[in-house]
């Protein structure tokens, strides 16, 4: 006897018209933002490609920014090496201060603050995240610089033998150190808020277990909460880093553009990629604009990469793989 093998049936789903319309709207929304991002990248690359092809790798490493004359007597020479270095240095200083501060703040909010204080502080934190960076920049110039200078003087005085803290002049204002501190205060609200969110998801029974084993609150935090939140906090720090890397106006107010590799973080030295673009754009020659757009492309790739790494880490940690 020959029995026909069972044929797998297709499973049809009938979408109602409302369903289709809604599906269209949300897909369009999702696609638009992706397309927009792609177009920005393409635009930056298209405008800047000429600079990349003439300068090549030197655009990223050189330390000259000369807008040539129209007759070609003075040749164009554009490169952003020191800007990239300062971008990295300022952002790293910011993270160095911001990450421990956010972890401490988040742990306090989640495990130590009384209910009422906690609610108020969380609301304030969310507000702080919405303050324009211009305000932070102004505060940095007007208020913080005088403190920062004193800290920088202290570091240079005590740890001057260490190359990074070495200084030649006694001019401690407008330094990457001061700018980094201001950027730290700028990213702390975001990183704290992410860290608090992850810490709050620590399974209650794990914390209880630590207590049941005769542990203290600090013991429970050390044993369970911090390991559980590790990847989430790293993800949050990367989001903050993304913001610090692209920060324009605060750095524009705090640092002078200075095309020189010095690696002396306590001295006036300057400018990150974003503030370079902001400074030069207004009075740029047509060729210079192309170079600035190329610099913009570099920044675009840099922040996009950092943010992508950040979101993948955050996704992984929220999937419960936080261990």
């Amino acid at each position, binding site marked *: 006897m020959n029995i026909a093998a069972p044929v797998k049936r297709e499973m049809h789903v009938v979408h109602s018209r409302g369903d289709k319309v809604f599906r269209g709207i949300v897909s369009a929304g999702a696609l638009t933002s992706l397309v927009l991002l792609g177009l920005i990248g393409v635009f930056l690359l298209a405008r800047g490609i000429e600079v990349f092809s003439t300068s090549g790798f030197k655009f990223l490493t050189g330390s000259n920014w000369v807008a040539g004359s129209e007759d070609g007597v003075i040749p164009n020479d554009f490169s952003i090496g020191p800007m990239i270095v300062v971008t990295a240095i300022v952002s790293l200083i910011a993270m160095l201060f911001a990450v421990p501060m956010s972890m401490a703040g988040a742990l306090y909010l989640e495990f130590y603050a009384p209910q009422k204080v906690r609610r108020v502080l969380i609301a304030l934190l969310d507000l702080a995240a919405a303050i324009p960076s211009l305000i932070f920049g102004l505060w940095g110039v007007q208020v913080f610089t005088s403190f920062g200078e004193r800290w920088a003087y202290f570091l240079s005085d005590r740890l001057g033998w260490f190359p990074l803290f070495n200084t030649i002049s006694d001019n401690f204002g407008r330094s990457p150190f001061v700018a980094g501190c201001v950027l730290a205060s700028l990213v702390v609200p975001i990183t704290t808020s992410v860290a608090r969110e992850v810490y709050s998801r620590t399974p209650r029974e794990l914390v209880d277990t630590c207590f049941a*084993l*005769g542990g203290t609150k600090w013991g429970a935090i050390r*044993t369970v909460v911090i390991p559980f939140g590790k990847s989430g906090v790293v993800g949050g720090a990367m989001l903050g880093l993304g913001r610090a890397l692209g920060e324009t106006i605060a750095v524009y107010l705090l640092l002078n553009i200075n095309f020189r590799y010095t690696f002396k973080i306590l001295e006036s030295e300057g400018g990150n990629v974003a503030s370079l673009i902001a400074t030069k754009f207004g009075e740029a020659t047509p060729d210079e604009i192309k170079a600035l757009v190329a610099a913009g492309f570099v920044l675009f790739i840099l922040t996009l990469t950092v943010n992508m790494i950040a979101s993948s880490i955050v996704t992984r940690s929220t999937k419960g793989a936080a261990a």
Partner: protein
Amino acid sequence: MEKVDTSVRSEQKGTPMTDTTSNTAVLDTEFAGLETRDAHAWFGDHHALAGVSLQFPARSVTGLIGPSGCGKSTYLRLLNRMHEFIPSAAMAGEVRLHGQDIYAREVDPAAMRLKIGMVFQKPNPFPAMTIRENVLSGLKLAHIKVDDDEALMEKCLTRAGLWKEVKDRLDASGGSLSGGQQQRLCIARSLAVEPEVLLMDEPCSALDPGSTLRIEETIKELAEKITVVIVTHNMQQASRVSDYCAFFLTDGGPGYLVEADKTRTMFTTPNDSRTADYVQGKFG
């Protein structure tokens, strides 16, 4: 058969026992040193538990039974001050260990919990730790130094009935074990700090029947050395594993202790008709 003092049970049905001196249910002549006197518990304004006075017999298993919401888990968490971690939780009365009120101002709760350990409903080994680290985690948490932690680890895993299954993979993650094995790992972890009393909050409710039986065997073996108090919803489990039972009930208000006695008595000839109805499955 030793005689159980049953003279001090609640006389009136439905009346929470409040009198500390006359209503203490003495379960056994050999007393573990753990007792509650007129214990009450609240969550905010909600009075969850009223007037429970009970003494726990040494080296035996006491089952806390009763329908959902009767306050037996709350009572268990009162016994080692886990209750207070719930915001707005409050208590009244006394919980005494060897005569010392553990809620007294001078008592360090962390040190007290070394003596009164707890195993939770869901198996919860520390996810970032290996099996070995899990067993020894309590020592680290409480800053206890031991001479031979390998020997201690083996002893605890053996007592928890897990040694043979994991001895070749002590450095594997605790999460790689099955649910039942994880729960036995959690028991081993609690044993490492050498508690006198082990509280268990429905330790088998998340496990399959086979794992449940293994845990029950483990519990019975543990009771040769330490005192176990176990909350269970499962009447068969209570009859299999416990030597004594305490029956809790609520009439819509706060939960209270109806009676406590030897498990066999509770399941055959309880004093209170509600106990008989409950253990026979007529309600709950």
